[in-house]
């Protein structure tokens, strides 16, 4: 295991941040730690990257205990925190050379490595500009590059796309995919289900300091009932007719919301369900205000999981 965590506990004053946190991440995979603010995502990453000491439990990263062998762990990890933790005044190249020297590469090797990484992360043209003139996406990519100086065995990414525009997010996603493609183990935290969907092999859902569900994105989604179709009719009187029609394409009895004149039902074959529903409603002459396919949101994941419908 690249990351092996048993019963980790951490408390800040009265607040319990981690309450028996367990995790296993296989080498070469991308694991997503999914959870709301305050669930303990950042605390767990900070403990695994040797920045914080746990109150109890045990954590091994790349084969070394984080509490007893922090230097060995630091030699094998890269950390990309929530801020773009780079020197704003220096250029991108100077930043990478600085970190290279601090990783004890020596001046010449640090220079070569900085050039390689700038090239790899698409910063070769802007490498000599001061970081304060970089866009959000460029800063993040430089941050990732700085976490990659030693080609780490395990890379920690704490909410790598928070605060980025869609373009910056895509840039970071591409970078993460390319790192994973090289065989690094990646542990990333996120609040966004679609981000986990894009990047990870395995999800651990964390709430109130412990993992409450785990599995591949597809497994989790199927446990949650997957995609849903939603229909809003113009007349509340048509709700019954529309529900009749929807039942034929849906996987379960449609839920009715009289106040909003809305029906909602889980579907498996997204596109076929949508076309069939539109056709059937049209043929039956039911005026429709809105019709849409919807992925389960993170809110729904949590509602479902904390309702006890799904167990880890």
């Amino acid at each position, binding site marked *: 295991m690249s990351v092996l965590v048993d019963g980790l506990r951490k408390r800040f004053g009265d607040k319990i941040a981690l309450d028996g946190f367990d995790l296993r991440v296989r080498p070469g995979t991308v694991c997503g730690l999914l959870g709301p603010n305050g669930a303990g995502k950042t605390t767990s990453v*900070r403990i695994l*990257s*040797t*920045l*914080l*000491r746990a109150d109890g439990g045990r954590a091994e990263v790349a084969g070394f205990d984080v509490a007893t062998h922090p*230097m060995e762990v*630091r*030699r094998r*990890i890269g*950390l990309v*925190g*929530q*801020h*773009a*933790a*780079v*020197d*704003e*005044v*220096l*250029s991108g190249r*100077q930043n990478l050379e*600085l*970190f290279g*020297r*601090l*990783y*004890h590469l020596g001046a010449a090797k640090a220079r070569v490595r900085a050039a390689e990484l700038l090239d790899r992360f698409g910063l070769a043209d802007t490498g000599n500009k*001061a970081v304060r003139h970089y866009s959000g996406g460029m800063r993040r990519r430089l941050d990732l590059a*700085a976490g990659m100086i030693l080609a780490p065995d395990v890379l920690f990414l704490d909410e790598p796309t928070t605060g980025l525009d869609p373009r910056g997010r895509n840039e970071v996603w591409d970078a993460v995919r390319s790192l994973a493609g090289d065989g690094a183990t990646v542990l990333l935290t996120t609040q966004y289900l679609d981000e986990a969907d894009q990047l990870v092999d395995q999800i651990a859902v964390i709430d109130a300091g412990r993992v409450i569900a785990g599995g591949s994105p597809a497994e989790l989604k199927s446990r949650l009932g997957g995609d849903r179709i939603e229909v809003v009719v113009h007349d509340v009187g048509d709700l019954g007719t529309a529900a009749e029609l929807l039942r034929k394409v849906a996987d379960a009895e449609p839920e009715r919301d009289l106040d909003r004149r809305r029906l909602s039902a889980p579907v498996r074959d997204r596109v076929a369900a949508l076309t069939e529903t539109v056709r059937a409603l049209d043929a039956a002459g039911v005026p429709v205000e809105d019709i849409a396919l919807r992925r389960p949101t993170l809110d729904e994941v949590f509602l479902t999981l904390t309702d006890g419908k799904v167990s880890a």
Partner: protein
Amino acid sequence: MSSLRWAVADGWTMTRRDLGHWVRQPAPVVVSLLFPILLVLMFGYLLGGAIAVPGGGDYREFLLPGMFVMTMGFGVESTLLAVTTDASRGVTDRFRSIPMSQSAVVVGRCGADMLNSVLVLVVMAACGLAVGWRPHGGVGATLAAFGLLLLLRFAFLWVGIWLGLMVADPSAVTLVQVVVWPVSFLSNIFVSPDTMPGWLGAIATWNPLSATAAATRDLFGNPGLADGWIGVAVAWPLLLVAVFFPLSVRAFRRLSR
């Protein structure tokens, strides 16, 4: 390499990072050099005429050693700003997650700030020479005076590092700016404490800034001043270091709590 040699090498790498800042963004360094010069001109020429100089002589001769001391006090601000900026942007955490000598984070800060202070003193001394200040005490005494000033700066360095690690917020520097001024005025930097109400004068006399100012005036050969302050000017900074160095180490360790 041994861990001690890595501590020195990494510390020097961190110091060079700051020197890189001077080159890439010279404005803050230039301002930190120009501001004390502006103060010398303001107090020396605008207000100085109205100030009685203890022991007689030229006010600017009296003022300059005080201004040297005050700029050492300003150093708390630059140290605090650097420490809090790194802490708030996650740069300190990045250093802590790197397999480097952990003391280098602080050693590098120390090296950069002390080099900056030497530069500030050189520029201030040149400015002083231009407005009529002269060291009258010989080479040894003059060097000893600058040594006392750097010792005071070294003490303030640990105050700044400790404060920076505790607050971790760059906006706290305004608070220090607000405090530095009254503390500077409540000293012998600008006027003799003899001119103040008795109890206030007593506080001003025993201000660590006053001790260094009195001792350097003595070493620069200013006329008519009480001697015997050199010992106090050594003791005060050592006491500050004895308090704030362990506090800083503790605050750094507490980052992982």
